[in-house]
């Protein structure tokens, strides 16, 4: 892994639903490669923040900037450079897990059949490649989402509560995998479990922030 120089700059970003501000104003910089934790209790705006960083939600005010090797990244290019897994994002139920990943690889233009196989293997679900998502357990489905997110080794990996539905052993595996990937990518991971970040890992605690 070459070591991503991906960078995210949040400039006075406010996440808003209707008239309600759910997060911000936030001015933060995340620099890759590395792992950053976004902490906070339910309702603190972690998922909203991640959706804005993923380009899925426009900030109510302020600006999200994406930079790769110091250059601004347009939204269209961001799709090829980033992977996202979130509890509310599902895979297509009529496609097998492998077909889902192949579809995403074609759209993002960052994956090959070999890349799909590698993503499935690293998520520990190669043997489930021909299954449809609905026939998987919730933990297996979560692994499939993770495989979809890190397919093609994206420069930016966004994981929203990735340990949900995983047992203790699988959580250990997950965080080992994420820490490994953070050596080469910028990884942002949200959690409401304060014990999940290791000592010394950078974190943004939305629950501890008070907004002016």
């Amino acid at each position, binding site marked *: 892994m070459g070591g991503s120089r991906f960078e995210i700059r949040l400039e006075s970003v406010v996440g808003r639903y209707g008239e309600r501000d759910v997060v911000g104003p936030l001015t933060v910089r995340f620099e890759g490669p590395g792992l950053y934790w976004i902490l906070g209790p339910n309702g603190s705006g972690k998922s909203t923040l991640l959706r804005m960083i993923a380009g899925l939600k426009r900030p109510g005010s302020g600006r999200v900037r994406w930079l790769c090797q110091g250059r601004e990244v347009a939204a269209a290019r961001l799709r090829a450079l980033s992977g996202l897994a979130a509890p*509310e994002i*599902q895979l*297509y139920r009529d496609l097998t897990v492998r077909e889902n990943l192949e579809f995403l690889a074609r759209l993002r233009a960052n994956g090959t059949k070999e890349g799909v196989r590698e993503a499935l293997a690293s998520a520990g679900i190669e043997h489930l490649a021909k299954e449809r998502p609905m026939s998987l357990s919730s933990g297996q489905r979560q692994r499939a989402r993770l495989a979809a997110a890190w397919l093609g080794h994206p420069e930016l990996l966004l994981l929203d509560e990735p340990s949900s539905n995983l047992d203790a052993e699988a959580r250990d595996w997950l965080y080992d995998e994420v820490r490994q990937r953070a050596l080469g990518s910028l990884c942002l991971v949200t959690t409401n479990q304060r014990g999940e970040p290791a000592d010394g890992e950078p974190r943004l605690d939305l629950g501890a922030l008070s907004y002016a």
Partner: protein
Amino acid sequence: MSIWAGATAVWGKELRGEWRARYSLGSSILFAAVTLAVLSFAAGPQARRPETAAVLLWTVLLFSATASLSNAFAREVEGGTWDLLRHAAGPGEVLLGKWLAGLCVLGLVEVFILAGGALLVAPSVGHPAGLAAILAAGTMALAIGLPLVAALLAQARSHGGLAAALAFPVLVPAVFAAVSGTRRALEGTWPGDELRILIGFAAALALAGWRLFDFVWED
């Protein structure tokens, strides 16, 4: 990646899902079979007259198309795949892919309707090429217009009923032209004016949809 490459990926995904789950085809063909049988029976020998046959054909086509295409985007929202798609693809790729898939599904439904119509109504066709051209242009207008309405309503709770209500003003000009053109083709005249209207209408819808889809795309 080019828009075309992304669109073909979406197109392939849509057709594969349709083939496996029969989301649209099953209900549309059933609807078309029942409507065609009831209307042709009710109209009796009158159904063979060009003006009646044209109305019958486009009534069945319009509502079958509504049944098959009005859920194109709601399925993504309800299945939790809308954000997966939005994160991986651009709006143009998705819209074009959905249009192409809709055109394929509608084409299949249309083949069924035409075969059923030939069997149950058996009108005489004075200008087969004119009829084929009107069918192609009318189908294009429906396949472009209905997914746009579906996209607008994807996040709405009662999108089914709203789709019909919104599709009506959007598609009525096209259906009027299609009915008139079909009648003329059945009578043996080349429906040049209606073709121009339909092609212009389809092009205007496509252009407007292409420009406006970004707003639907935004959260």
